[in-house]
């Protein structure tokens, strides 16, 4: 695999992860600092099945998604009752707990990690994953479930008054986000070939969150482009070696201070907006809250 392909695969996986963060944080307004642990669930399930049972990679990734969804119910049912920062706290707890479990568990390679996963992810797999994820998230956002999530983000009490089951909406968004993270995890496992518990810590989750924020928290386009831009930036800064994390964080900080809404704010790309006549018809020219 050439250098450019590996960069491309990284960018693709990051875009998928960012879509998951967008669903739970941008759309539903829940600050999850445990997103990396769902990536871990997907990655470890896929890696475990591939190394121990030598299953087909596709099946492994599917299994990773299913397990992520199951875990999202186990975590979501107690913690989604908590609001605001308390939910963030619960996700931090979950992230630490999972990391501890992975570190002690012999089955998953302990602190050394899971090694010997076949490296089979190619660029077209990632393209397929990205297209599927973006399409699903876009449709979810426009569906009534997505609108329910949006109303939960805007005003939870008002949403409840209008008969929206806020807990169910949150659980659906949480499970979708976990499934997407699980998919990204599976691709990651087959891209890297090894997994270790310290690849999925709370700071890593915070980096995902910052990535989505960079593009514009309330914009799906922003999530895609923010993730792509920051991952490419990270690769470009590779020449500066040790300075790169500092430069990277500084650039993000400046963007957050100068444009607190992120690069794209609530702006969404749509095919319609390219066509002036249809643009007028749909009233897209007016802009407004990204729905």
């Amino acid at each position, binding site marked *: 695999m050439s250098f450019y392909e590996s960069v491309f695969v990284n960018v693709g996986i990051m875009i998928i992860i960012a879509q998951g963060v967008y669903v739970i944080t941008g759309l539903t307004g829940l600050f999850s600092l445990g997103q990396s642990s769902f990536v871990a669930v997907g990655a470890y399930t896929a890696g475990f099945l591939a190394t121990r049972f030598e299953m087909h990679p596709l099946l492994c990734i599917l299994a990773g998604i299913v397990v992520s969804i199951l875990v999202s119910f186990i975590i979501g049912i*107690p913690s989604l009752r908590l609001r605001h920062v308390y939910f963030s706290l619960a996700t931090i707890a979950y992230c*630490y707990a999972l990391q501890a479990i992975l570190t002690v568990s012999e089955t998953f390679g302990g602190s050394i990690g899971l090694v010997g996963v076949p490296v089979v992810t190619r660029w077209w797999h990632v393209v397929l994953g990205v297209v599927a994820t973006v399409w699903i998230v876009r449709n979810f956002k426009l569906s009534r479930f997505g609108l329910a999530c949006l109303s939960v983000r805007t005003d939870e009490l008002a949403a409840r008054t209008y008969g929206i089951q806020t807990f169910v909406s949150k659980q659906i968004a949480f499970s979708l986000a976990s499934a997407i993270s699980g998919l990204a995890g599976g691709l990651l496992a087959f891209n890297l070939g090894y997994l270790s518990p310290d690849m999925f810590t709370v700071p890593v989750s915070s980096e995902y969150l910052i990535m989505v924020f960079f593009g514009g928290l309330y914009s799906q386009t922003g999530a895609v482009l923010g993730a792509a831009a920051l991952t490419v930036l990270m690769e470009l800064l590779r020449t500066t070696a040790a300075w790169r*994390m500092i430069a990277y964080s500084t650039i993000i900080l400046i963007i957050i201070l100068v444009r607190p809404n992120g690069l794209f704010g609530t702006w969404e790309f749509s095919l319609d907006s390219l066509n002036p006549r249809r643009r007028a018809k749909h009233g897209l020219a007016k802009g407004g809250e990204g729905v």
Partner: protein
Amino acid sequence: MFVQQLVNGISLGSMYALLAVGFAIVYNILGIVNFSHGATIALGAYCAYWLSTYLRLPLELSMVLSVTIAGLVSALIERITLHPLRRKGQPQIFFFIASLTVFNLVTAIIIYVSKANITSYPRTLIYGSIRMANVIVPKLDVLMLGIAVLSLLALSAVLYKTKIGLAIRCCSYDSRAAQLMGINPDLVIGTTFLLAGLLGGIGGALLGAKYAVYPELGDMVYRAFFACMVGGLGSLTGAIFGGLLIGLIETISNAYINAAISPAITFGLLVVILLVRPQGIAGKLVEDKI
């Protein structure tokens, strides 16, 4: 054996309590989750290490200096990053992200300068241990507990006996009314961050002496966050209790179960506490939580 672990737990918990109180005073006044507190924790440990190793200052002096640096850096972080957001009246989430980014930035700088090595101070802070019946307490633990108690007493003296302390308490009740009474909010918030930074610095420097000096020391901020929330939102006493509780659970699960699995047990228990007692152990009712 159990008493022994209890003593260890209280000593570790007193450190967490210091960090949690620093976290809580900022939360009280601005209502923001200030992750940049983690940066001051890591700086507290690293500045002490750098000053004592490269400038060959005595360890005690470098610790005092590093705590001061941590406090000033904390106030500086507020001035550079959070102040512009506050002036524009941005929602809470921007503070959340901005402080997280600052935390990552400072960690990146520390990793760059220290080459990500795990090191320790040039000498042990204090040797020996005290023996009472069959309980052996390292003098370092006693010192940590003593410094924690003194710092918290000093903090409460500042908050309850001085004019700036009155202003801080006033702002945390109602910052708008405080402003109308002629209190300068920038000064008050700056001082609060300075105090929080000092507490973080003390915690960091001492944790560095107990364990080792490593870049991820700043991640203790997540424990402080937990202690602050489990203790009870908006209560400094609660934050102290929360810190002690985390220290105790962690030490006991380290000793009786398994050191590697102890984060899972600690954090699992904390979530259970949050669920059954959402108002926190200090008992101040916060309706907003559930």
